């Protein structure tokens, strides 16, 4: 009788579902559960019998089993459908299991995994990680599970679109970024001399922020946008954007570097994360858009409006008109000298398909 609570069978086996299972067990730990309440809660979520045997930890403790209604030692006893060792200080002290009749659920393995972890934490209390440590684990994760664990602890839906902001930490003088821009409970962290923080996708550094950065001679990088669960892949683009910032323009925005972001070493970025490529892909689907892109291709090869017009048998003002139109679609001036590399990279990538 679980009344108003969603149970395991009702959760999707996607990252959001995994985060909810993690969060469920984290809440038990945060609120000081013992093994009995952990078992009752596990049975309630699993909606089947669960058990624990930790006689390796405390020789006096008998195996315990609990059903979804919170009754102990239910009959009949089924063979475990999934189980996991409980490990305390690298020593296996016992195991937890579930007894699901019939077909297993996709999240059953995740459930016993969390049961085992929670039991280990209850048996030997560990320090709870701080928000800063979770933020660090999200930006520099060990594995995919660490990402989801951090998302759960930081109260961030894994699909939430975010950016990463980076600047050089100089003896702890922080730039005045309002904390409410940070999604969930994430905080600013310092890693290897860099200050890093997560921002909501939509937020843009204010003029005041840029002024402070300029006056302190601090260069700032803002990453491409992506889901929080991929935040680690965005860090490189934030640093790349910072490397392109200058004293006059102290904030580098990775969006403005377009396909050049693919130059970031050691990263495989989804093209969908780069707005220039998304816009170009949309354009290419229409005849008119394809014509605009073809014009840019010729322009970049020939070097001037006149030379491009000549090879396309057009008047040079028509070429200029097309490039202006294309600039409007892409969100940057494709024919400006400072955007030459960005435009060239864009064409190189889309021609490489």
């Amino acid at each position, binding site marked *: 009788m679980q009344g108003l609570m969603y149970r395991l069978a009702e959760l999707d086996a996607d990252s959001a579902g995994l985060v909810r299972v993690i969060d469920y067990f984290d809440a038990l730990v945060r609120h000081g559960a013992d093994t009995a309440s952990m078992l009752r809660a596990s*049975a309630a979520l699993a909606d089947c019998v669960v058990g624990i045997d930790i006689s390796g930890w405390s020789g006096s403790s008998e195996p315990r089993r609990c059903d979804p209604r*919170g009754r102990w030692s239910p009959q009949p006893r089924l063979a475990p459908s999934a189980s996991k060792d409980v490990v305390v200080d690298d020593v296996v002290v016992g195991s937890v299991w579930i007894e699901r009749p019939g077909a297993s659920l996709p999240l059953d393995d995740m459930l016993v995994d969390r049961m085992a972890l929670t039991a280990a934490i209850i048996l030997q209390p560990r320090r709870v990680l701080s928000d800063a440590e979770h933020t660090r684990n999200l930006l520099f994760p060990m594995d995919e599970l660490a990402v989801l664990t951090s998302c759960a602890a930081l109260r961030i839906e894994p699909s939430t679109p975010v950016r990463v902001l980076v600047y050089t930490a100089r003896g702890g003088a922080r730039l005045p970024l309002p904390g409410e821009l940070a999604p969930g409970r994430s905080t600013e962290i310092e890693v290897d001399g860099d200050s890093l923080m997560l921002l909501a996708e939509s937020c843009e550094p204010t003029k005041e922020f840029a002024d402070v950065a300029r006056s302190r001679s601090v260069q700032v990088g803002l990453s491409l946008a992506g889901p929080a669960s991929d935040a680690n892949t965005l860090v490189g683009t934030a640093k790349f954007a910072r490397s392109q910032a200058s004293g006059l323009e102290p904030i580098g925005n990775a969006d403005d570097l377009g396909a050049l972001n693919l130059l970031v070493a050691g990263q495989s970025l989804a093209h969908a994360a780069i707005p220039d490529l998304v816009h170009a892909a949309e354009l290419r689907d229409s005849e008119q858009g394809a014509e605009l892109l073809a014009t840019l291709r010729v322009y970049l090869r020939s070097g001037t409006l006149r030379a491009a017009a000549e090879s396309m048998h057009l008047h040079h003002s028509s070429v200029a008109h097309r490039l202006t139109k294309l600039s409007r679609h892409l969100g940057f001036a494709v024919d400006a000298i400072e955007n030459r590399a960005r435009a060239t990279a864009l064409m190189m990538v889309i021609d490489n398909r």
Partner: protein
Amino acid sequence: MTSFPTLDPELAAAVTMLPNLDFSDLPSARATFDSLVGSLLADLSFDGVRVQELSVPGLGDDPDVGVRFFTPENTGGPLPVLLWIHGGGFAIGTAASSDPFCVEVVRELGCAVASVEYRLAPETPFPGPLDDCYAALTHLHAHADEWGIDPSRIAVGGQSAGGGLAAGTVLRARDEGVVPVAFQLLDIPELDDRLTTASMTTFIDTPLWHRPNAILSWQYYLGASYTGSEDPNVSIYAAPARATDLRGLPPTYLCTMELDPLRDEGIDYALGLLRAGISVELHSFPGTFHGSGLLATAEVSKRAMAEALDALRRGLRVVSPAS
């Protein structure tokens, strides 16, 4: 959402799996509630309990009122009865959503339970829902023989908005002097439209019930003529906390939950009853939230259930618990 460090661990875990019941979107709140209750009822065993879907005439021109009537399968002689009123902020829920509770009461106490299918706000604002409950009470009393119940051992109880309707029904029974109510069971009752208590002003994002839902709930229940918490024309039968004379009411069990905006109005009502010379048992459960009793396997929920059953057993003078 605010984290509530005093929350019981089992309930804290359950909170992460709760649906969002947003009273500003009633159709979806009703659908969410119904689907969850549906899975709850699918698991429910009625072994040893007889359920009949009956009805009683409504007051005046009102339509008949449905009553889910629960009795032990093997019974002799007139039974004490609990008139039970389900919760749901006056606007959601069904009598059947209380079936697990009603079945438990019949099994544990061997008494009868009559669970009222009152009409819901905002489609039917006050006094409609209260009239339905009152109609069920007077009919049960007047036709005690046909129903096989003992007219001197009628208790009235309800949960949440049902607790408010129960308190209103009992006040009206006292005033009209027709039905002697033996006992009232007010489980996390919703009693006060004025929304000024400390818990009601503090708990704006507590699980399941919070100030924004409470505001809407009273607007739905009190209807278009309601002008808000300053409205001088709110009936004490709608908002029993407004009653100034609580003398002559039956012995009462009242429970509240720690992280429930309704906590303080419940405690205030219990204190008012005590000051009026009424025998009251008041229990506030730690680490709980409004409706956390629906998470029935949690240890604190089991304690609360056992306590309510015990109070009811004494209130209805059930001599020996059913085996």
